[in-house]
């Protein structure tokens, strides 16, 4: 291909990627190196608020109030702070302290067993917001990915062996979980598992006793992971099902003639043929999983299961600090790049080697 033709083809995509991905990302990075707020001073303020039935209450208290410039506008502070936002978000100092803490003795002076030491270490590390969020984010990514691949593949094989007329409705029905808005899906799961909600009541009638699903980390995390599998499996299914349509029929027939069992045909022909699709789904899902947000928000965020995306939202919403939220977002991007680097490397190698 001529260089000119090549650039004519590639140019528009590069331009779009630069303007929609690179530029905003650089903007967020720039923000994350700064701090911004209105300058305040503590002033005595008398405030009057209504109570009830026409009564009011007057309070005199010392509260931060904006410092005004000569035009009466609040003075804004905008400072370069370097890596400070990154430092407060990731708290490497706190991590180092947790890692280097002396754990040779338990609280009552007994020599600690290995299990106790590890438990103490785990508690201290995950007590730091960022590392606690990272823990569940990774757990979610690593638990859901193999499940959606396997279940998606089994579904695809099953649907592919159905009679033609039944496929359409079944594909449509199995896509539904993926179409549902994540926050609605999460809420439905939350409602299903409340005190006397459908699932809890059903299990009780079946003699499983009263189970409280929302009372500790284990069950809440399991529910979030189940939600993830339920929500994303259709995506894997539909891609693999499309892939199945491209499996060469003659190879399968030849294998059948040679006496290969159904399992052998799947193992030695279908799965290798779909290899690239498996990596593609893994890649996309890891990226999505790393940004898990809605179920964490719905299921009592941050106590039983936290995520990096929720942490960014928390900083933006409750601390009202978009510069620091920017640092948190950049850390998420870096995390995704690290997580995906083995796959990206493999793709790069394959591309270089092939064609």
């Amino acid at each position, binding site marked *: 291909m001529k260089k000119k033709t090549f650039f004519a083809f590639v140019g528009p995509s590069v331009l779009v990627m630069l303007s929609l991905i690179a530029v905003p990302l650089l903007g967020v990075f720039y923000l994350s190196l700064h701090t911004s707020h209105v300058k305040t001073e503590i002033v005595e303020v008398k405030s009057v608020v209504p109570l009830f039935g026409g009564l*009011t209450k007057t309070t005199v208290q*010392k509260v931060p109030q904006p410092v005004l410039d000569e035009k009466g506008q609040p003075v804004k502070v905008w400072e370069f702070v370097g890596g400070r936002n990154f430092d407060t978000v990731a708290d490497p100092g706190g991590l180092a302290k947790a890692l280097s803490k002396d754990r040779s003795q338990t609280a009552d002076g007994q020599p600690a067993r290995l299990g106790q030491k590890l438990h103490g270490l785990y508690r201290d590390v995950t*007590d730091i917001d960022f590392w606690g969020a990272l823990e569940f984010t990774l757990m979610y990514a690593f638990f859901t990915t193999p499940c959606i691949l396997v279940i998606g593949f089994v579904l695809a094989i099953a649907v592919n062996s159905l009679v033609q007329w039944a496929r359409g409705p079944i594909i449509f029905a199995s896509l539904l979980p993926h179409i549902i808005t994540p926050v609605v899906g999460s809420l439905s799961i939350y409602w299903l598992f*409340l005190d006397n909600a459908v699932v809890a009541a059903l299990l009780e009638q079946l003699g499983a006793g009263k189970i409280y699903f929302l009372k500790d980390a284990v069950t809440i995390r399991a529910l979030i992971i189940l939600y993830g599998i339920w929500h994303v499996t259709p995506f894997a299914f539909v891609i693999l099902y499309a892939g199945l349509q491209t499996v060469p029929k003659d190879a399968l027939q030849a294998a059948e003639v040679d006496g290969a069992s159904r399992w052998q045909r799947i193992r030695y022909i279908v799965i290798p043929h779909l290899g690239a699709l498996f990596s593609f789904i893994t890649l996309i899902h890891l990226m999505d999983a790393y940004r898990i947000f809605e179920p964490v928000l719905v299921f*009592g965020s*941050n106590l039983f299961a936290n995520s990096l995306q929720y942490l960014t939202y928390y900083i933006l919403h409750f601390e*009202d*600090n978009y510069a620091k939220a920017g640092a948190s977002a950049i850390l998420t991007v870096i995390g995704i790049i690290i997580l995906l680097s083995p796959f990206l490397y493999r793709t790069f190698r394959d591309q270089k080697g092939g064609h």
Partner: protein
Amino acid sequence: MKGILAMTLAAVLFLAPAMVGAASGVQGSGEVNVITNSFPSLEVICAEMDKLNRDGLKVETKLSREAEQEIKQATAAAKCPYDLVQGANSSIAPLQAGGHIQPMNDLVEKYRDKYNIEEGMLIRFGDDIMAIAFQVNAQHLFYRKDLFDKHNLAVPTTWDEVLAVAEKLKGEESIQFPLGGTFKSGWNIAQEFVNMYLGMGGEFFKPGTAEPAFNSEAGVKTLEMMKKLMAYMSPNALSLDTTAVMQQFQQGQIAMANLWASRAAKMDDAAESKVVGLIEFAVAPSAVKGGPPATTLWWDGFFLPTTMDGDRDLAFQVMMEGLKEEVVKANNDEAIWLRSVYQPSRFSKGAAASAMAGAPSYPMKPQFTMVHAAIGANIGDFMAGKESAEKSLADAEAAYITAAKEKGYIQ
């Protein structure tokens, strides 16, 4: 027949806005963009504002659960896309401290008579009127009158008495748990902490500063009381929010809770509730005997953004049309309205009694949202038994200090 009906209906719908427009008293022309949270009384108010649309006057209302976040961003912009924004005592303080909302004393004077603007609706910072409030809300005691009668129990007035009553109701078979509570980790449980801590006489800040003081003995006592209460609640308590607790009541699962007054009318909603007429409302219990009720009073109101690009006089008139006496009269039970034409009902009894007994207002300080968030993010670890009360308060304190320093509230 059907065709004629449809035609008449269409004609009415077509003419109605014009008729209302002519009758409305909004002077002037232009565009007014309004953003509010989404709950029943605001739906009523916004519907009223929407009726003002006529030639030369365009009123657009947006109701959103994420309004608070959007308002924070919009009012900080060089040109705010909204001319009228709604908020509460938690959200007004950071907006006021950032200079993002403007005083409206002149407009209040101009329209005081026309709209009968009452003194009890005005939110003042110093001499500046920064908001017009329309309703109040507070958490207070909801209890099952029938079960209290059956077991011959007196209505508890302190949280210690609540514990004693809960113990007696433990054996009651028609319910599952004696107590409910909005203990969901995060905002809800922090709100419960604020209620109880102020009731204990606790101070959130060192005098005259924004430095935290809630990592204190009163803080530990507050957490310990909350944990004692949790023992009488559903094991899921740390995942249950206001709506979930409301449903526990409606399904007859619990006998008592400190719940929002805005949910009181829902107890008698026959479509949802199995306990119509069985719930009574009382003053929020005190944390210490003889002390104020351990709850905080909230109000909701409207503000004018500093950087609005519309006409402030017009925006003010639109606001007052939405808050006029007729609206309150026609929708009496939708909220505890602040206007004196409001007729208190049995649903407002608990909130009124709490206000009369001296319940404090929710702290109106700009740094308080950060305190609330830091507490909500950290005390769950204690409630779930993962760490000590002291440790979780120290974590909350450290989180607040970091956040407040970054926003310049403490040095």
